[in-house]
């Protein structure tokens, strides 16, 4: 049974055929209300942390509030004026699979700063991040970098646009 109009539309998809450290979604159309990024990745050479940059901005325009836990201890922290949007809780050990889902709401407006909510799930951590990008620019490019590691073969990256109900 098909859904009514106003739902996910796949904008771009990437399944890795080789170990890769950075994935880029570029030329993102401004025609949706929200974006969702779904990543299912296998950590190569020791999973590290993920960083995200928007529109290639390398300035210290990112901040975050996050909570994550490993089954033993819970950490919550707030960090400001960073040059990436860090997502700590996507850490995964070598050869294990992890999933994270990013929601970028009202991404194409040119009036407000952009906030991103991420739910991350690995064999090591579970967590949630609120990242802020202090820019009023519409988001047209997303860079996802695995610090100190790489995304292994078979990892999948998908970018969806969500349209308002019609």
């Amino acid at each position, binding site marked *: *049974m*098909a*859904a009514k*109009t106003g*739902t*996910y*539309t*796949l904008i771009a*998809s990437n399944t890795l055929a080789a170990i890769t450290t950075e994935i880029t979604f570029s030329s993102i159309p401004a025609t949706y209300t929200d974006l969702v990024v*779904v*990543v*299912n990745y*296998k950590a190569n050479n020791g999973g590290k942390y993920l960083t995200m940059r928007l529109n290639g901005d390398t300035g210290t325009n990112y901040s975050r509030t996050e*909570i*994550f*836990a*490993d*089954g*033993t*201890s*819970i950490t919550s922290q707030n960090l400001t004026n960073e040059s990436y949007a860090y997502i700590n809780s996507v850490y995964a050990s070598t050869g*294990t*699979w*992890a*999933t*994270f*889902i990013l929601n970028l709401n009202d991404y194409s407006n040119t009036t407000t700063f952009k906030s991103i909510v991420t*739910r*991350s*799930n*690995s*064999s*090591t*951590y*579970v*967590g*949630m991040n609120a990242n802020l990008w202090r820019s009023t620019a519409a988001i047209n490019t997303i860079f996802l970098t695995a610090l100190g590691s790489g995304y292994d073969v*078979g990892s*999948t990256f*998908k970018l*969806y646009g969500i349209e308002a109900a019609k």
Partner: protein
Amino acid sequence: MALNLFKIETIEITNITSSITFSNIPQAYTDLKLVGSVRSNVGNPYDFIYFYLNTPGVGAYTQRLIRGDGSSVSTQTNSVSYYPLQMINGNGATSNTFGSFEVYIPNYRGSGEKSFSVDIVSETNSSGIYMDIQSGLWNQTAAITAMTLASGSGLYLPYSTFTLYGIL
């Protein structure tokens, strides 16, 4: 452009039931999303669900969670032969309240182990109820073709619903 979120099936409980199964899940999507609104007949404000992929008892599940109960936060790790979906509403919760959960499984046809995301909330206008974010992993590489959700301490009450979506 094509629309990419499709409802595969909704199961609504009409008689008190111990288990529901989504079988013959189409292999035509990339991701699966399971949404539930559930209440059981256990006397506590909360209950849980045994969640199985494909054949119950095959493979092992790992769970990491963060839980809040309105006054404190805790974390757990569980490694078991089923995935414990905690916590949904029990019959000790305020009348007419149902717990809600969402399970997102990307790449469900892939050849890797299956990693998934779980969010669960329950509310009772009182204490003794929980909300979780959970990370799940099933250590099997088979494509997911079925899901079974067996009730925990109680049985599913009427008007509980389970809906499975496919995402392209």
